[in-house]
């Protein structure tokens, strides 16, 4: 009986393992197609410099909570973006430090009685300010809503342009980020939201809020996250885009049609992963209403973000992301296998539930069962060894394929030494780091099951981003 039991367990894990890796490899192939298509169409930028002057006005909403150290530099950088028509709206979410005072001083802010319509719910706005130095800068000072979603909603209420980009106050944008990110809206009028690739800023030289030189971090945790971000954005997102099933637009940088944001009720302040929840909700509402729409993703690096370099911060971030994943999917469970949901309902959401959400649970269960069988002497070690080797080699294949996609699309790490470092990280992450992420994601899973809420989170920043 034990033999039959262990065999069935082995087969179950094997089936899960084969399915998840086939899924990732499939995403990879779709991503290659998507990137090739994108690169072909993006070649128009070379041919038609005038095309980049086509624009839709954009409101940049920058939620800020206790960002005193970096807020002035970040906003100055945003004001220098190369885009013909945009406004910046900073939402100070009741910071307890001197974020607002710094803004008032640096930009000569002037209290200003803005009369606007509250179209998505948010905490009370205490005051609005306009800058005497920059006509396109406004600042909203509001009561603390406890999360980025509430602050973003205040910005959505007050902004004036048809497109709204929600940007992290500590994110580093490229000067042409808006020109690039707006392309899905220009090319397809049905686009309601779009995101771009986010890269790791650690190790890069950032001056006055702009990226001066791309580099790799020395910190191992940050280095491994470079690989993770390449995987997540170049085939994690790009693999869903051509089939109309992008479920996440990164909270670090995303552009939305304002009317759509208002129609779906803005960001959900109760959501832990408000960025993913919003996109899944947009899918749900528009799919179920039978509307034609498009959520775009471009593989261009549009935003650079600071990655946590300490285990504690990284663990907390990953647990939060996983908690947010579970919550986003369950808040929109109507979409699961819905006959009207298309690829989102029948492909993306089942994939996210079985492989992303339940993945760490199955992996942890596998380890427990493995240990138990080991103590009972029921493990065939040569077979187990092959299985572990297979798991490692497929992980390596996916990482190397992400590096290849980077080289193929928008290579940023130009030095041979950097390429070697990326390969080394792709190998080394399999020993310890991947297992740790399983543990963090498992914690996030437990948090989701037990329903714990999230508030603004402070992560210790690396030296690369933040100040001057």
């Amino acid at each position: 009986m034990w033999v039959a039991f262990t065999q069935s367990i082995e087969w179950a894990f094997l089936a899960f393992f084969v399915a998840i890796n086939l899924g990732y490899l499939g995403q990879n192939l779709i991503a290659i197609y998507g990137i090739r298509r994108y690169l072909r169409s993006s070649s128009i930028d070379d041919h038609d410099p005038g095309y980049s002057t086509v624009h839709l006005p954009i409101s940049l909403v920058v939620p800020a909570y206790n960002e005193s150290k970096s807020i002035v530099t970040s906003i100055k950088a945003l004001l220098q973006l190369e885009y013909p028509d945009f406004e910046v709206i900073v939402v100070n979410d009741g910071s307890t430090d001197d974020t607002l005072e710094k803004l008032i001083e640096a930009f000569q802010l002037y209290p200003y009685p803005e009369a606007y319509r509250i179209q998505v719910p948010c905490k009370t706005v205490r005051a609005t300010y306009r800058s005497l130095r920059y006509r396109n800068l406004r600042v909203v000072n509001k009561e603390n809503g406890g999360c980025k979603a509430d602050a973003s909603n205040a910005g959505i209420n007050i902004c004036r342009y048809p497109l709204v980009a929600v940007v992290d106050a500590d994110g580093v944008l490229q000067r042409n980020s808006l020109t690039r990110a707006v392309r899905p809206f220009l090319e397809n009028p049905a686009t309601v939201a779009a995101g771009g690739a986010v890269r790791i800023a650690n190790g890069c030289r950032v001056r006055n809020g702009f990226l001066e030189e791309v580099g790799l971090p020395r910190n191992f945790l940050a280095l491994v996250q470079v690989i993770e971000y390449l995987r997540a954005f170049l085939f994690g997102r790009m693999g869903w885009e051509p089939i109309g099933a992008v479920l996440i637009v990164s909270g670090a940088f995303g552009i939305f049609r304002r009317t759509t944001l208002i129609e779906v009720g803005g960001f959900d302040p109760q959501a832990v992963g408000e960025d993913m929840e919003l996109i899944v909700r947009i899918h749900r509402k528009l799919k179920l209403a039978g509307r034609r729409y498009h959520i775009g993703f471009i593989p261009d690096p549009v935003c650079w973000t600071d990655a946590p370099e300490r285990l504690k911060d990284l663990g907390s971030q990953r647990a939060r992301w996983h908690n947010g994943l579970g919550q986003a999917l369950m808040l929109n469970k109507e979409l699961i296998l819905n006959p009207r949901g298309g690829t989102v309902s029948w492909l993306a959401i089942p994939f996210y539930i079985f492989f992303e959400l339940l993945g760490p649970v199955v992996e942890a269960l596998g380890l427990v069962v493995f240990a138990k069988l080991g103590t009972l002497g029921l493990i065939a070690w040569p077979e187990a060894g092959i299985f572990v080797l297979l798991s490692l080699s497929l992980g390596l294949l996916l990482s190397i394929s992400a590096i290849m996609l980077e080289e193929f699309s928008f290579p940023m790490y130009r030095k041979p030494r950097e390429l070697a470092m990326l390969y080394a990280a792709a190998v080394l992450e399999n020993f310890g780091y991947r297992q740790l992420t399983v543990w963090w994601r498992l914690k996030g899973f437990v948090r989701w099951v037990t329903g714990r809420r999230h508030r603004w989170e402070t992560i210790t920043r690396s030296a690369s981003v933040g100040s001057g």
Partner: protein
Amino acid sequence: MTAALWATIAAIAASVLLLLYTIELRIQSRFRERRRARVHAYWRAVIAKAMTGDGEVPPLLPRRHRQEVLKLWNYTRSMIEGAAADRLIALADQLGLREFARSQAQHGLLGRRLTAIQALGHLRDAESFREVLAATDDDNPLVAITAAEALAEIDPARAVEALIPKLAAHRDWPRTHVFRLLEKAGSVAVSEPLYRCVRAASDADAAYLLQFAEIAEFDVRDAMAAELLSSRSDPELLAAALKVASGYGAVARLDELLDHPAWYVRMQAAALLGRIGNAADTQRLEKRLSDREWWVRYRAAKALVRLPTLTRSALEEIRSRLRDPYAHDVLEQAMAEAAIR
């Protein structure tokens, strides 16, 4: 387990192959970049010399460099006008770029087609007018709008005659580009065909076309708005006509339009008063400060602040007597905006 072993070997082999492929990609890209830099450096100098009109015969352009040089030529030409532009066109002819652009505009890949169509415009290639006009109906909106812009360079007056009737059907064309090409033709060339098209168009199409009316001559624009305001009833069209109006043609119906059920008509009517109104319109606008729609309140407040004979103290007096908090707030905002400006 044999399968797992083979899968492991396959995964490792694939990883190694991808690694080698990545290295090859990098080597190729370095090589391409260097070659491109060399081509650019050489031909940029040739183009610069030609612009000064030194009369030298340009070197022979190798076939493999034609595309790169055409891009470089396009880039330079898009920034140059006058005699230097004529010399650039002469250089293109000497290099055989006109023939190359004509062939690529028909048969090239997307990027090459775009470069070629743009070049035909920069070359003012009248012989290609018909082919380029056909490209304005291409399924790809980028090809279509690039072709439309090229036409405006080849023959602006003929281009607007041909393009204005197509505008309503090409709503995917970026408006900034449409404005640019109409501006190139000038208000005199645009006025008559636009008026003709607006009169013949359906309500929805006329409303769309009216947004380009600001390029038309002032009298034509106003006559167009007055005619539509007196003869049509579609709310979107009325709002579009009010937006364009800048004379008294609309005044006859203004009270009716200020009370129109569609908020955007009320908003545009209030905005129009801001442009043409005087102190006698104060009460009309004051009433709209309590409109249920924010935008109407806002436009009415802005209009009040703009009324030429209304002083700041008069505005403050109006504000102080407003009982509706929404009306009070919005007027306060408009006054604050005016003060900052």
